[in-house]
């Protein structure tokens, strides 16, 4: 019974494809895309200034307002800069940590190390960011209290604080994919590279890095996109700074069309990001 069903499927690649695509397709395309489309289309509408309800008259006023006011250019560049910095910092921490965990730690310790890397995930976003607030508070915070005597001071609240906070939050999302990728990297490849005369760093650059690049890209998608849409961290440790998400959050209730206009920016950025990723050929099917 089972084998004939399997044979039937094997002979019909299109059926297999259909079976694979139906559920996610329905969900993402119909449900999510439809709902999102209904929201983003309001970017071309306006609101009745008296009642606050959306008026479905096509016009480009919102885009004009957004593009002419330098404030929005500032917030876009700032958010982009933060997302890129967070991704870089996460990668810099994650690669050596994942390498140690996958290749150097004893097998019985590996599991414990993975568990230890993941524990911050259970400590709630808000609690962690408030802990960072305690740490970064100028003069009276933990960093100044602990490291002040040796001359290291907290950067205070603002851009660097947001980057530190977000990098902290998303670090497991970068470590785990890289760890999974490194774990499957056969040591024979690394031995061969050494046998052929490559020094460690050369092997790292020419053998390891290209092989874990898909995992790096997978991880970077999380750190980049999660940072792009974030706004709570900026409110708590960002000082006076705002991110794109803050602007959307402020406007969505009273002026949905304008909030939708701002929301098209992360969509565009992600489309560009994915296009760039495909150009590097990391995940050829992306």
């Amino acid at each position, binding site marked *: 019974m089972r084998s004939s069903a399997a044979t039937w499927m094997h002979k019909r690649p299109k059926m297999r494809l259909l079976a694979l695509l139906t559920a996610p397709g329905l969900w993402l395309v119909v449900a999510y895309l439809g709902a999102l489309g209904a929201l983003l289309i309001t970017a071309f509408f306006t609101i009745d200034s008296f009642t606050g309800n959306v008026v479905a008259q096509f016009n480009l006023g919102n885009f004009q307002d957004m593009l002419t006011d330098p404030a929005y250019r500032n917030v876009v560049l700032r958010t982009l800069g933060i997302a890129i910095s967070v991704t870089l910092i996460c990668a810099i921490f994650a690669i050596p940590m994942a390498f140690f965990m996958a290749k150097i730690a004893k097998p019985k310790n590996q599991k414990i190390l993975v568990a230890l890397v993941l524990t911050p995930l259970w400590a*709630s976003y808000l609690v962690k960011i408030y802990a960072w607030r305690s740490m970064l508070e100028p003069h*009276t915070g933990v960093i100044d209290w602990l490291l002040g005597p040796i001359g290291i001071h907290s950067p205070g609240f603002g851009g660097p604080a947001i980057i530190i906070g977000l990098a902290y939050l998303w670090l497991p999302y970068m470590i785990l994919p890289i760890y999974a990728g490194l774990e499957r990297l056969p040591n024979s490849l690394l031995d061969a590279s050494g046998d052929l005369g490559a020094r460690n760093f050369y092997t790292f650059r020419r053998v390891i890095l290209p092989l874990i690049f898909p*995992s790096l890209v997978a991880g970077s998608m*999380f750190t980049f*996109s999660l940072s*792009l849409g974030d706004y709570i961290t900026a409110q708590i440790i960002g000082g006076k700074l705002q991110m794109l998400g803050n602007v959307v959050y402020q406007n969505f209730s009273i002026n949905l069309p304008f*909030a939708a206009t701002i929301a098209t920016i992360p969509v565009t950025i992600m489309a560009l990001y994915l296009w760039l990723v495909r150009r590097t050929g990391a995940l050829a099917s992306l």
Partner: protein
Amino acid sequence: MTISSRARYALMALMGVGFAFIYAPLSVVIINSFNSSRTFSWPPTSLTTQWWSKAIENTGVRKALVWSFTAGAMATLIALLLGTSLAFAVSRYDFFGKEVISLLVVLPISLPGVVTGIALSNAFNQQLGISTGLLTIVIGHATFCIVVVYNNALARLKRMGTSLQEASMDLGANGITTFRLITLPNLASALFAGALLAFGLSFDEIVVTTFTAGPGIETLPIWIYNNLFRPNQAPIVNVVAATLVIFSVIPIYLSQRLSQDSTSGGRF
């Protein structure tokens, strides 16, 4: 490649720095759960256990934990199913819409939560006419959890290629057996990583949940938010976070042991 002991120690030191980075704030959380100050001021001038006793008496947090675990488990399951099938489709086949799928799947986490929240809330209320509840929370969470599983699965499938699969079928196994004995075990650790991260995302999510959870349902992040902004007992959230952190090591360690990978690249 050989790892000299100097390089080994250097990596161990980096690992130490990494762990210090990870655990410093968590230590602050644990210490603050005993801090008598209601505004988390540092250093604690006096210690108290009142927040712990308040947390133990609190029935709201227990209910919130149950809601969060239930929603997280269901959302992760759905994300596993949909994300994996999508990853297979994209990595093995060619079809119209392939390139846009990746954008679509990552949008839920790259847009501010309020956009996804409002979009889904409108869809539920106006287009589908279903009222919010656990089901809508799960739908909301699964929508942004798909990408976590999808990315990890896709990266692994790309690395894996089709040669093992083809070899298995050449040797006489049918599609289902091949999937069961060859493909799935090779995917396992990637899927496990994806599932853990997806659960973590769902467990921690507050904004989309506010709009997709109906009246009366309070997940843990919402409970924490409410308490942080009640003027009188913010430190109680530190107690909950500290407890979760301490107890979480055990299930993760256990689940890791249960999912032993049959093949591994080897270690130094």
